[in-house]
């Protein structure tokens, strides 16, 4: 019958259509790529490595939060009542596990680690054409992973260990991981030191070098030797690494004659450069630290500042008037940028003291968040001071121990220290003070106070307790991961 035939024909058509279903519903992806067709060529591996560097310039990492966490607790800086409650909590030692910044820092460091692990997990499948390229990529990746773990373990002390071997593990524990994490840090920096170039040129400037790896290895040994791990045999290991890096002519490290030159936009990779977070204007690679530390309504920089990280008056007064670093460290005097008839001075018509290190009037980008001046993660004066510290801790005050600090002081126009006038404790404090004058605003002081056990001694304005030598595991993380345990000081 006509109806039956029609129904049969239609049903047949529908069944035929069913056949092309599964492919009909498969995803068609155009402007994104997936791991299935990536991680094949050498340039894929390079791009993967670049994504690890990219994590450094995130605002929860070196671009802001990590610098604030390392600076506000110290005696040199304070947040000047700027917005975020967390900043005041860091400055006044009133933080809790729910304080917002800790979660941001923790999660962004793990983004770095995860991307590094992704490179290491996929690099075996890549076809390399250039000899030595594979080791370089692995070396840079491991340097960045080591850097992330070094900051994590110094901030939080008990952190989960994630490598390319256990990437799929979700609820990783942080109990008893400390030794394994340190071992990985030493391993990663050592590998990087052995496989990276001594110096990079041209298009590769900004990549990690063997010198950077050796300097961070020194810092790692130094931290492991200090509070709270107290592995004192590592003091001399640190001193050895530091000396080797200082003396290595291939690295070519040296101090700039004039302190101002260190922070010029035109001199970002001078002899004092070891490793920086790279920023550039106009290509979406800028940052807003100059705005953050610039003077609000101060006619100091064209696009105005926020005065959100400013100088404690006591610290300003602590630096000698003869210290050659003074005018580049602090804002002392400038003429208005829009209204040059007005001169601003501190002390004077500027209400509170401000930092001057990241203010370069030639640094102009595409808005308040597009500045190009790089941030030194470490530089030569840090290495020199680390050497002095390590030597002093290993062998007490000696000519060797004051070599580094005296070079820094000579550049600053200050008299050399005489080792016979110091004990190990007083020299340690002198080194701490020198680090403060030399490296303030650069994200070192919290680690220095921790390692040297000087937090309660140096900070008198606020209630510092033992628990403040470590950050709490962020509450959000404890909520999401039942295998994480809070640090005992915060229970």
């Amino acid at each position: 019958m006509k109806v039956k035939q029609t129904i049969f024909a239609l049903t047949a058509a529908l069944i035929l259509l069913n056949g092309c279903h599964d492919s009909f519903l498969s995803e068609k992806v155009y402007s994104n790529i997936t791991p299935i067709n990536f991680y094949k060529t050498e340039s894929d591996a390079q791009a993967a490595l670049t994504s690890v560097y990219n994590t450094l310039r995130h605002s929860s990492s070196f671009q802001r939060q990590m610098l604030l966490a390392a600076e506000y607790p110290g005696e040199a800086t304070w947040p000047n009542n700027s917005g975020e409650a967390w900043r005041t909590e860091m400055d006044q030692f009133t933080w809790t596990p729910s304080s917002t910044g800790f979660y941001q820092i923790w999660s962004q460091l793990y983004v770095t680690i995860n991307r590094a692990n992704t490179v290491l997990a996929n690099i075996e499948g890549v076809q390399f054409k250039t000899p030595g390229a594979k080791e370089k990529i692995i070396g840079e990746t491991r340097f960045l992973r080591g850097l992330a773990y070094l900051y994590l373990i110094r901030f939080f002390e008990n952190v989960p260990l994630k490598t390319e071997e256990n990437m799929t593990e979700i609820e990783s524990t942080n109990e008893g991981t400390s030794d394994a994490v340190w071992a990985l840090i030493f391993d990663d920096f050592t590998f990087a030191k052995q496989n990276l170039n001594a110096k990079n040129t041209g298009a590769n400037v900004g990549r990690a070098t063997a010198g950077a790896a050796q300097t961070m290895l020194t810092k790692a040994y130094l931290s492991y030797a200090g509070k709270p791990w107290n592995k004192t045999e590592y003091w001399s290991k640190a001193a050895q690494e530091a000396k080797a890096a200082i003396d290595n002519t291939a690295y070519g490290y040296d101090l700039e004659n004039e302190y101002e030159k260190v922070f010029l936009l035109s001199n970002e990779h001078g002899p004092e450069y070891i490793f920086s977070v790279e920023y550039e204007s106009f290509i979406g690679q800028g940052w807003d630290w100059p705005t953050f530390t610039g003077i609000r309504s101060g006619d100091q920089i064209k696009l105005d500042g926020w005065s959100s990280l400013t100088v404690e008056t006591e610290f300003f007064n602590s630096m000698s008037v003869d210290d050659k670093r003074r005018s580049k460290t602090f804002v002392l005097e400038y003429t208005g940028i829009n209204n040059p008839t007005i001169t601003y001075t501190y002390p004077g018509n500027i209400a509170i003291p401000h930092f001057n290190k990241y203010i370069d009037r030639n640094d102009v980008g595409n808005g308040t968040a597009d500045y190009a001046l790089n941030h030194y993660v470490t530089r030569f004066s840090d290495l020199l001071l680390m050497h002095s510290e390590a030597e002093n801790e290993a062998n007490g005050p000696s000519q060797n121990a004051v070599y580094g600090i005296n070079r820094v002081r000579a550049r600053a126009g200050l008299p050399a220290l005489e080792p016979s006038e110091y004990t190990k404790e007083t020299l340690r404090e002198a080194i701490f003070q020198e680090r403060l004058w030399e490296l303030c605003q650069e994200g070192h002081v919290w680690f220095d106070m921790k390692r040297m056990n000087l937090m309660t001694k140096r900070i008198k304005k606020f209630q510092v307790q033992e628990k403040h030598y470590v950050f709490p595991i962020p509450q959000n993380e404890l909520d999401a991961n039942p295998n994480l345990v809070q640090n005992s000081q915060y229970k």
Partner: protein
Amino acid sequence: MAKKLDMMNAQEFATLVNEARANDNQSPVFPNPNNPYYFPEISALGEGVNYQDEVFTSAPVQNYNLSVVGGNEGLRYSVGGGYFGQDGVIKNSDFNRASFRSNLDIKIVPNFTLTTNITASHTWSNGMPSEGDGGGGTGGVVHGAVVMPPTVPIYDADGKYTMTNSTPGGTPSNNPVATVNHYKDEQTIDRFLGSIDANWQITKDLTLKVTFGSDMSTANRAYYWPKETHRGNSKNGEAYQRFRKDASYLNENILTYNKQFGKHSINAVGGYTWQVFHYKHFEASSTNYSTDLYLANNLGAGTTYGQPGSSKSQNQLASYLGRINYIYNDRYLFTLTARADGSSKFGVNNKWSFFPSFAVAWRVTEEEFLKDVDWLSNLKIRTSYGKTGNQNIDNYKSLAMLGTMNYNFGGALNAGVGPNNIPNPDLKWETTATTDAGLDIGLFNNRLSLVVDYYYKKTTDLLWNISTPSSVGFSSIFKNIGSLENKGLEVALGADVLTGEFKWNTQMNWSRNRNKVLEIPGYTPSTQGTLSGHLKVNGSWLEPGLPVGVWNLLKFDGVFQNEAQLAAGPRSTANNDKLGDARFVDKNGDGKINYTDDRMIVGDPNPDFIYGWTNNFSFKGFDFSVYLQGSQGNDIINIQRAETNISGPWGNQRREILNRWTPSNTNTNIPRARVTVDPLLLQSDWLIEDGSYMRVKTMTLGYTFTKIPYVSSLRLYVTGQNLITLTDYSGFDPEVNSQGNSNLQLGVDYNAYPSAKAVLFGLNVSF
């Protein structure tokens, strides 16, 4: 403009600023002898600038429609067009649409009909930046109009526009007058929506309908920030262009069978449909222009090029469907439906899901025992159960995607590629199972009707981002987890009150919905998202047992009015509380205030009930209708209040702050003036208000002419929109949700574009 906020004038604001500075041991801002133009003596300040008046304006609306309807046995047609134009409440913004429609019904042979439905429209509008975060001095005009201090003159001493707020400690808000007068943002959309149906009556009882349809639109947005604006000044002019194309294609094949034999009536439907959605976009920008004359039309003329962007994506849907309706003796109704739906968005093993439903109804009034009850014209009892699916998520969520993560070496940009998410190959349909029971009653020949429904919906396999431990490298993973219930009651009452020459018809509806999160395995309750970055205001609290969207914050408990109260506490652990600072309820009784330990559920954006009431009157050729609508018991989190009511020199404040705590005005609950905000105030129910409202949404008066030659009817009408709103809510409009795209953030007011009171004149002509 429906409403303006009551803000302080210049003298009041300057007094507040100096007082805040004095309270926090800082020098006064007014006067500043180095800058007398911007910071004169307080006595020399008058009212200052009322930025709301400068920026908001009335918004006339026009609406014209023309249609031609007619035909004969073989061809029926309905063709028409119209124009709609509305000026924006913010100056120099508007919206216009011209549209055209053509519907044709062609009977080719007695049992084969071809129908075409085509709509085309062209929309063009001028926009103004309004919504969102006031941090970083963004150009948002609503934010600027409210927050810009009245002490800041529109022009500087040289007659050029003031760029930003220079009050020390103030928001870097851009000058909204410069934006409104010079910012250009043109948007055009061309849309074509059309379908063609072939309807083949195979036999008396069997029909096949095949449809092909398409919805295509092309949109362009071009904006330009000229140098008179702060953003344009800082970038030397910024031009931006964006093109996007959306296209979807649909095919439906439906077979319908109708048969009546004796007391049985059967209607059966079966079919197969598929649909494809394409999306493509392209954007580019330039800055550093020597002249503003090009506006956004010549990106090449800028001397610095921005990073261009483009993307392309696609998703597909396919479905099998079948339904059987069986009616016995006109009184017992049964319906059984089955659907199998497939979506490309889900994991390889879960593209398809099965959604059945059934419904039963009883037309009681058809029964013999009710045949003689004249006053009861309709009584129907019905119940149903069914499942539906939701796939309203972004494309490609189940796949591992790699993203662009660039860095720079040697001063040059280097491309970086890294993982963007955790893949989830098990991603599948979200399912909602709905049970419904209802009653339809009609009295007096359906002159009075009542419809009541009770429903219970349970949604399982909720699709959302759930937090993961950050050690994985990501803070969330998109998966199906958790379940949610919604249950409620809906009542609709209608009556033809008067049916003579003067007609009056009234319709009322009332509904009440309760939602509750049921369970989320492995999830610890926490806040979801952030509502304001720079103010650090958290999003809603998600916890099983509570409704979606509630807020878990500190409870504000007045201020410390005197020394005794300050000593009694409870004091906050982070701040240094002084007299006049805010006090909060100490939930855990430990004598200290701490956000994590003392917060509690302080607000619920879900209303207790919502309602609407329409009254239609007609007399001779006149028609008059009033539509009233309202919501009761919904709370709103007023972030805009946070921007304007944090008691300091940040920006202009509402006049209620004149009653702030001072040593001479201690009997008040408004905190003292201070230079920086008390951060706990922004984490408390200080921001939450009752958003209940009743609104006369539309009121229309019209007249229809019938005796005009060549014209079948002509109607003139005038409509008022949003004429009256009754509410205690202090913001612009209680009908607000700035985060409309989010399922978890409800009832948020963050510089939402204010609603307009409008009067609309219109004309409908039919031939």
